[in-house]
């Protein structure tokens, strides 16, 4: 029996990941929003992202230095070079740190080429904030499925590759923090469609095989509403029969055709997603708690959607 999702906000470091475009940033922002609203001092950090976390929080572009976007809610954007600089300042007290700027290109090169360097600087910074208890909760808008395992496994990878040096001396406490299920969890966001469902199941398998990091929850986002109960569905069938449509037209005019077609579309779209929901549920086999978030029929997506999704998560968590 897996644990329930209810303790989600009691962890202190959550990595929110999922296939591209499923709603990672939306969900990370909403979890942060919810936690902050409940009085937890919360940091939301965007990693390797398209810079739209700011949009979901209704603020201007984010920097490495966190800003308080609303009471208790802080937001930052990861910058591995800045992270390195901060790390060196804290650990080496190297006077030449100031001169790292001009060699940014070179740094970028090494970071790209040497496996794990960028990742460790990212994970290291986040884990550091948790270790120092600078926040009650750190929520990470993490990279998409394809890259997140590499990121989460980076302390272990570095441990294997780098035998000496300062980085090496740092990985032990990070690994300890990341593998403590009371502290750290991965939140996998998905939508009820074929490829995201498949990727989610594969990701969870990989996380379990390649890391010791706990999957805190799978969040199924953009769930279309089930508009009719069974008896209602039967009545709807009567409505949309040609005899039924004729009756409706008599009172409402010909435009009722479009309205009924719209409802029919809603039913069919919902139905086409059901098999994926089932496959997901069966694939997870009760090991990982599931949360469901509704598709939002909103004009735009921004801070308003974030607060609505935060409420929806709150409902799911029983708050």
């Amino acid at each position, binding site marked *: 029996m897996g644990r329930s999702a209810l303790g989600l906000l009691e962890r202190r470091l959550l990595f929110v990941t999922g296939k591209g475009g499923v709603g990672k940033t939306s969900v990370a922002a909403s979890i942060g929003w919810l936690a902050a609203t409940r009085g937890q001092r919360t940091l939301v950090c965007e990693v390797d992202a398209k810079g*739209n976390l700011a949009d979901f929080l209704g603020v201007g572009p984010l920097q490495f230095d966190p800003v308080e976007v609303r009471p208790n809610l802080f937001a930052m954007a990861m910058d591995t070079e800045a992270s390195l600089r901060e790390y060196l300042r804290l650990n080496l007290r190297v006077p030449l740190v100031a001169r790292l700027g001009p060699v940014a290109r070179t740094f970028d090169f090494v970071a790209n080429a040497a496996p794990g360097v960028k990742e460790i600087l990212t994970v290291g910074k986040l884990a550091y904030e948790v270790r120092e208890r600078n926040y009650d909760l750190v929520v990470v808008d993490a990279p998409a499925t394809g890259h997140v395992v590499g990121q989460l496994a980076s302390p272990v990878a570095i441990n294997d590759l780098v035998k000496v040096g300062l980085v090496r001396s740092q990985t032990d406490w990070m690994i300890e923090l990341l593998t403590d299920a009371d502290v750290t969890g991965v939140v996998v966001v998905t939508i009820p469609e074929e490829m995201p469902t498949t990727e989610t199941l594969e990701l969870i398998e990989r996380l379990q095989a390649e890391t010791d990091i706990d999957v805190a929850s799978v969040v199924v986002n953009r769930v279309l509403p089930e508009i009719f109960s069974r008896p209602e569905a*039967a009545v709807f069938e009567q409505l949309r029969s040609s005899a039924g449509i004729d009756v409706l037209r008599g009172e409402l005019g010909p435009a009722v055709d479009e309205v009924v077609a719209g409802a029919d579309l809603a039913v069919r779209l919902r139905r086409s997603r059901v098999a994926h929901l089932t496959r997901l549920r069966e694939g997870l086999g009760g090991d990982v708690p599931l949360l469901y978030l509704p598709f939002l029929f909103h004009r735009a997506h921004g801070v308003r959607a974030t607060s609505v999704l935060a409420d929806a998560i709150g409902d799911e968590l029983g708050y």
Partner: protein
Amino acid sequence: MATSGLEQLCSAKEVVVSTGSGGVGKTTVAASVAATAAAQLDAKVLVLTVDPAKRLASALGVQEFGNVETQVERAAFEQAGVDPAGELWVAMLDTKQSWDDLVRQHAPDAATRDAILANPLYQNITGRFVQSHDYVAMERLYEIHASGRYDLVVVDTPPTRNAVDFLDAPDRMADFFSSPLLRWLITPYRSRLVNLASKPFYTVADRILGTQFLEDIAEFFILFQTMYDGFVERARAVTTLLGGPQTTFLVVSTLEVAPAREAEFFLDLLAGRRYHVGALVLNRVLPEFLLDRSATAVARRLTHDAADLSEVFRSPLGVGDDEPLESVLGQVGQSYLDYQVVARREAEQRAELSSTPDLCLTVPALEGDIHSLGGLLDLGGRLWT
């Protein structure tokens, strides 16, 4: 003058590249276009896919990974009720194997080749640096096109964070191999020690990562460097092919905010580089009937007056007294209004796509996924004429 579909494009070009941000339907569109071209034209068509959904892959008969080109059997077309005029071939991109092939091809001798393939950093690095998927995808395309085996090659592009990445991949690869740091790394370690102190970065790097690790990296790159000329030359050839008159791009997008923004950016970029954009394909678009104004009024009435209307309709509809008519009428109205909000947002998004190419094709949101040849042909048919 624009034609009304992809028929002319597929008859005139040799390479069709399907691009767009992740999840919008690049793979599906690439496979549909290729299948339809094979059905309609007397041509040998190959689709080079990157990450097909499992069921799509098995429908096409490419369940096993590997760089093998497989023909989709005639029988599969016939099952879908089509008598194909040409042939459809499918290949899936296997990044790891493609890299190994590249090394085999460009390594100066067997010893270097084996040393690279055996290097523990090799796998790790090829999987990460310089968008290696993008590079090998373009490399494979070049290879296949140059072989002359196919009349038309339709390529799917990898799910990159940024649709431009793969375009720049060949150049970036060339840059990478001519980087000053790479040269520095591969100068013998001894001579490096001399001025190590004067180079703050390396001092720091040494202290952080440890000398041994830097050494490992250096050794790996020394080996890789031997392939420099081959890589750079190839990168140039790939860039030429992408910009050439035989190649056209399809930009695929949904009408959601983020993909549409990316599509717009990409269209501008392609135009700036004078690449040929064959069409903008708007995928998974909601039907236009959701925008009907008189229907809005009806839907509002249904939601507001559901109770009264259910009294009016109950007996003419033959709905029993105990059956939930009122809630159904209210829901019917509400779902129309809900989806209308989304459809309006899509319409607005479409209007904002200012730099639209001559040819803009729309594919509706189909029910369920497209994972049979029949489904592909159906979707392709909507794009064809």
